[in-house]
């Protein structure tokens, strides 16, 4: 794996390896000294054409825990109308010998363009591109779901898949890179994915996705999902006639207290509620965000582990990369350096 651009082209073996390495990385985060020497002397550039403090600091923490040097490069304003082109920016970073570029960009496909071009040789990690994909978000969601699923099953999560799990994703799928990345990754990992949202916010062409689509959220909840992932809604979409009002949206597709209570009534004791953040409380999600079912803070925490795994596997040259075999997918990574201060249990 040279780049991490999308989850659609991620094999089950590669995805599981990322998640398994992330489990190892998460152990580092629990130590007093949260640092590995793995990427000492390597340079990671966070190239952000769009503001996203959450994603940027998550990547920054991940790179720093691996001892990489981190450069934050925020391109202000619209790159379309003014300022330096993506090509010139990339060539500048190349001249500064960046080893990895973590890119957030408002244009779908910008990371793929960077990776395919001869502008820069660095590993490219997509940190969210337009309405295309956000693969590390999906990986952290899968990581969170896998831990939950394994805990219910009473097994350690490393090496396991999401087989048998039913995940419901709700909201503005059309504009959501999180939804796209999750659809591909979760199904690759064996989960069944259900989508629910207003027909205006489900893309034309969704029929070819490996999902069941519902227009009615309650009908979707009746399918007894093991996890409900609420997508962020941009209230401005109302102005383009995607829905009549935020109140109507909230009533029909928001995860409100009534629907939270419904889970209890249905006896869905183990169903978790997820949100990629930042949340619009009172719009797509209510106090459900604070309930014991919520995984929202675990998602944030797991984000660092998953991003450490991605950086580590891309930059250290994964020996298992080229020919992933099935038997490897269930084995723990054995080429990780021993974390500083770690004791073997």
């Amino acid at each position, binding site marked *: 794996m040279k780049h991490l651009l999308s989850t659609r082209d991620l094999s089950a073996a590669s995805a599981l390896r990322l998640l398994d390495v992330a489990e190892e990385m998460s152990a580092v985060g629990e130590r007093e000294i949260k640092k590995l020497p793995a990427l000492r002397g390597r340079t990671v550039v966070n190239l952000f054409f769009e503001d996203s403090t959450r994603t940027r600091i998550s990547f920054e923490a991940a790179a720093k825990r691996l001892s990489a040097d981190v450069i934050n490069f925020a391109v202000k304003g619209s790159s*379309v109308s003014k300022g330096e082109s993506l090509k010139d920016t990339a060539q500048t970073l190349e001249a500064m010998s960046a080893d990895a570029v973590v890119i957030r960009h*408002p244009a779908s496909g*910008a990371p793929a*363009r960077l990776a395919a071009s001869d502008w820069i040789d660095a590993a490219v990690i997509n940190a969210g591109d337009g309405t295309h994909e956000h693969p590390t978000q999906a990986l952290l969601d899968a990581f969170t779901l896998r831990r939950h699923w394994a805990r219910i099953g009473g097994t350690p999560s490393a090496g396991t898949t999401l087989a048998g799990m039913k995940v419901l994703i709700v909201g503005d799928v059309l504009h959501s890179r999180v939804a796209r990345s999750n659809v591909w990754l979760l199904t690759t990992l064996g989960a069944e994915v259900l989508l629910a949202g207003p027909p205006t916010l489900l893309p034309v*062409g969704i*029929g070819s996705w490996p999902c069941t689509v519902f227009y009615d959220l309650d009908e979707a909840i009746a399918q007894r999902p093991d996890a409900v992932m609420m997508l962020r809604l941009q209230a401005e979409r109302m102005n383009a006639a995607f829905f009549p009002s935020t109140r109507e949206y909230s009533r029909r597709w928001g995860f409100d207290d009534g629907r939270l209570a419904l889970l209890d009534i249905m006896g869905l004791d183990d169903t978790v509620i997820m949100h990629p953040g930042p949340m619009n409380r009172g719009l797509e999600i209510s106090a459900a965000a604070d309930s014991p079912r919520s995984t929202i803070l675990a998602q944030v925490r797991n984000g660092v582990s998953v991003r450490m795994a991605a950086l580590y596997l891309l930059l250290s040259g994964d020996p298992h990369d080229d020919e992933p075999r099935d038997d490897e997918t269930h084995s723990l990574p054995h080429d990780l350096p021993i974390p500083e201060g770690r004791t073997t249990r």
Partner: protein
Amino acid sequence: MTDTTQHATSTEYLIRHASILGKTSADLLLRDGRIAAVGDTAAAQASPSAVTIDATGLVALPGMVDLHTHLREPGREDAETVETGSRAAALGGFTAIHAMANSSPVADTAGVVEQVHSLGLASGWVDVRPVGAVTVGLGGERLAELGAMAESRATVRVFSDDGVCVHDPVLMRRALEYVKAFDGVIAQHAQEPRLTEGAQMNEGDVSAVLGLTGWPAVAEESIVARDVLLAQHVGSRLHVCHVSTAGSVEIIRWAKARGVDVTAEVTPHHLLLTDELVRSYDPVYKVNPPLRTADDVQALREALADGTIDVVGTDHAPHPSEHKDCEWAQAAMGMTGLETALSVVQHAMVETGLLDWEGFARVTSVIPARIGRLHDQGRELVAGEPAHLILVDPAARWTVDPAAMATKGRNSPFRGLELPGSVRATFYAGHATVLDGALATPRQVAPAREAAAWTR
């Protein structure tokens, strides 16, 4: 109407054993801008100074006529000029091209169309026919001075806001009616603007995955449907530019069956490429209308074969590299096409058995000349006709290398593709603009001729 056969150069060409329209092998004698003889008598009539060309194995076709070329001059001479674009056209087998009006300034006055026309005459590689804008500045609000452009030295007959749709139904109706006064035609870029705000690619399975804003087929089809009904209502001539969807084909087929005077065009790229290519996010595949699905490609091929779609138009749209060396959303729409048109159409239509070479001549020369009212182009290859013709080696195979092209644009979506067919020679009014597959010399126009045109 410019008579390009006047003041022709004096070099005489005797073409031996050419397969006329892919059929009978015959000799052709070109003299004084015209075909002097065809068949067994040609060699006997040739003067001793005639240059003999052995055309064994080559197909003789009428010079191709493009109804849809972007030459970028005036305004974007870094992208293309009349000179470079018409060189590319000659190499591609064209003897006439229509320069679209979306230059800067827009070709919406007699002055601009005459300038483009003069530049074409000065270049001398092909007949450059300016297209006039329908509305002032392509603004879609007021009619441009269509009559002045029609009566100018450029004798404009094709009017188009190409790049922008004349979406106001009243304005479209008036334009269709008005150009009847001088036998003009409105060439519509069918794109409903509200349905395509921010559109980046065909809306469908691929756009859903890529997260690119969709350009739905219905945005084209709804305008085509409206326009054929308008054309019928006012009894006018309508030309639909770059038809890209199976649904548009159905509507045009229906309109023709009802007797509507509509013609339609398809680009070479829409006959070959699909939106699957967009998965690369390489903006070389970004074009307007966008690449569609394999079903659309098949429908367009069948429509071109059965005459529902009348002509091939290249929509040659060169762009400087910085407009393509960027993110998809930021990239310009458009592809070069003049130097690959013949090969792509041979590949998509002739080698699939959908068209023979006579059919190829019909869709690339005869009908486009008729739509543009170019009376001396797209003629039969018989004695007495103007000598606009090309010699094509259908057995040739070549790999597309945009860097080797005469156009300034390097944005060819066929880059690296091996294609059949090669233009070996182009004769523009009896003058060889291309020989042995390479540019020869432009046709010089006697200054007296231009002076005469001024005073006409």
